[in-house]
């Protein structure tokens, strides 16, 4: 029932966005086929990367242990979760393609044959993604290397467009409903069949340690998520610090703010992969803000996505903020006041946000021919609001017991939705912050309201931190 209540409105919103004039402008753009190829490259790189931490073959820990120590070949024992994962991925790809293709067809921009072709090829893309996801699980280090290889080749493809035709993901673009067509189906089907044929051999290489470790992690993450503690669920999959341990992060000086900036910077360097992803996310957020100010673009939608990405990008930069939030809720440990402790830990992430977003906005504005002023102000406002959202999220604490109180109404008990809103408040506010940042000059009251809400939540949580 909850799925129906949430999924149908979301699905409708997605369809309306795709069918809107701004959405159609985006989907029917001349660059859309090439963009589709790049999206597929990102999907395949992501599948390899994700597989190294959470593969498609995951069962509850006890079942995993029992099956892994049994005499059954891995392919037989763990076939079901792989099939289940494959069906989900393939269905999602096909549905996404269906929304895009039918939106174009409903406005006469594509014929039914093109729609069917695109959906079929997207399903094949889903099948290939599943196998790559499995490859990432079986060969985690190779998977990470492969992911970076795909990203690198994809990036080269943006500089030399003709090169993209030689990469498998480049075969998807011509199948786009407004694409030029071509032998994509045969090539991709052959690739998919050859990869699927490798599945039994790949699965029989799944090791006991890897299987049980991934099962335990997923079990822990879902337990946290079920309790609406999404932060802890995410922490389960975070890479633990391992690099640069011999570089002193704390270099006492008479200038304490500088001590904290260096501390946070070196702390971030200790998970270099996370740091790179975080910085790239901030670049992406800045890019989306610039795109939102371009004529004919769905500004509010791009702003929402920019807000979510900016919030995610700040994660690797705000370990110090999270620790400070724990410290101010505990017995006094540091010799400075709680307010000063939190403030010192925001200096580094704010500095990085300003530098990266200013750089991204400047470069993208120049490339896209959009004036730099408005996007710059919007990006900086977004950076500030998502930083405050990060502090709020760190101070959040556990689910207030009052939210467990049932509240029967004529329309049912809305408290489940309230609890989910509470759990996702930082993401929701970040999305609104993104939208308000790009609408700052058109609807300044909206921006001020979001800013006030973010600050008010922060003050409330600060006062109840102990």
């Amino acid at each position, binding site marked *: 029932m909850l799925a129906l209540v949430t999924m149908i409105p979301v699905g409708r919103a997605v369809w309306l966005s795709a069918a809107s004039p701004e959405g159609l402008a985006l989907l029917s753009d001349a660059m859309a086929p090439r963009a589709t190829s790049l999206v597929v490259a990102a999907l395949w790189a992501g599948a390899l990367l994700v597989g190294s931490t959470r593969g498609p073959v995951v069962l509850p820990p006890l079942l995993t242990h029992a099956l892994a120590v049994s005499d059954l070949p891995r392919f037989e024992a763990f076939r079901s979760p792989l099939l289940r994962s494959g069906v989900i991925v393939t269905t999602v790809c096909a549905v996404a393609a269906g929304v895009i293709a039918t939106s174009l067809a409903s406005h006469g921009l594509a014929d039914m044959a093109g729609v069917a072709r695109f959906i079929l090829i997207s399903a094949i893309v889903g099948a290939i993604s599943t196998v790559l996801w499995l490859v990432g699980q079986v060969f985690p280090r190779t998977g990470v290397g492969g992911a970076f290889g795909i990203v690198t080749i994809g990036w080269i493809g943006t500089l030399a467009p003709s090169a993209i035709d030689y990469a498998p993901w480049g075969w998807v673009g011509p199948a786009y409903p407004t694409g030029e067509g071509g032998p994509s189906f045969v090539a991709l089907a052959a690739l998919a069949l050859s990869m699927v044929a490798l599945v039994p051999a790949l699965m029989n290489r799944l090791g006991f340690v890897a299987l049980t470790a991934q099962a335990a992690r997923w079990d822990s993450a879902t337990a946290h998520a079920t309790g609406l503690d999404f932060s802890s669920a995410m922490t389960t999959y975070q890479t*633990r610090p391992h690099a640069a341990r*011999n570089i002193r992060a*704390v270099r*006492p000086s008479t200038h304490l703010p500088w001590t904290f900036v260096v501390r946070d910077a070196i702390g971030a360097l200790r998970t270099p992969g996370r740091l790179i992803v975080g910085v790239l996310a901030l670049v992406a957020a800045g890019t989306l803000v610039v795109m939102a100010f371009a004529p004919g673009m769905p500004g509010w939608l791009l702003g929402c996505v920019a807000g979510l990405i900016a919030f995610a990008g700040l994660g690797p930069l705000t370990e110090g903020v999270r620790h400070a939030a724990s410290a101010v809720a505990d*017995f*006094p440990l*540091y*010799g400075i*006041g709680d307010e000063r402790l939190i403030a010192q830990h925001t200096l580094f992430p704010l500095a990085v946000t300003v530098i990266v977003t200013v750089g991204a906005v400047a470069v993208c504005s120049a490339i896209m021919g959009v004036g730099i002023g408005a996007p710059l102000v919007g990006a900086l406002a977004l950076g500030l609001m998502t930083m405050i959202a990060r502090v709020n999220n760190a101070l959040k604490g556990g689910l207030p017991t009052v939210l467990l109180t049932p509240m029967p109404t004529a329309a049912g008990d809305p408290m489940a939705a309230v609890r989910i809103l509470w759990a996702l408040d930082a993401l929701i506010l970040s999305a609104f912050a993104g939208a308000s940042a790009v609408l700052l000059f058109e609807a300044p009251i909206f921006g001020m309201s979001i800013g006030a809400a973010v600050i008010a939540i922060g003050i409330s949580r600060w006062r109840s931190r102990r």
Partner: protein
Amino acid sequence: MIMVDHVGVISSGTTLLSPVSIAASRGEAVVVRGRNGTGKSTLLRVLAGVRKPSTGTVRINGTVVAERDRSFRRLVSTMIGLPPMASDLTVRDHVTLVATTWFDDPAVAVDIAESVLEELGLGELGERFAHELSSGQTQLFGLALMLARPFEVLILDEPEQRLDPEHIECVIRVLRSRRDRGATLVVATHSVVLTEALADHVLELETAA
């Protein structure tokens, strides 16, 4: 230094701590003992200022306990459970950071951090992260964070947890040295060894909550 006068805690009709009284001067150690549920941790929380007593009064250094008071923060160091440990700092980094925030002279902060690490046998673990420590090493790390800051009163809840006899002796030596330098210690413990080695006063909580 510490004056506890008929302090008791009642919550929602349940007695968490029956009224107790104890006094301790500078350079003395009070060991709090009792069965599980007699209110040892509750008493420590009252002393630390995070729990208000339902009856009686607590004074530390002649003033009423006020956890958020700036001078109280400087006076009292409390470890009930483990302190929050930064995931991205090594043991040495974190202990040094705590010291840095208390001492204006950077060289003094570094010296104090290094000496605390050596006292607790953590010198060779200085480049490890918190998630790379065993449970006993984590307990010692927590103690190091407490000792890297200045205090006149040290409140500890079962500092011997997860430690082998050799490291319990190490902790006893460290706590004894702080006591001998004039600090007042309040330690809740089940350890007979720790009690006999440290206690100037023993407060036995007998009535179960």
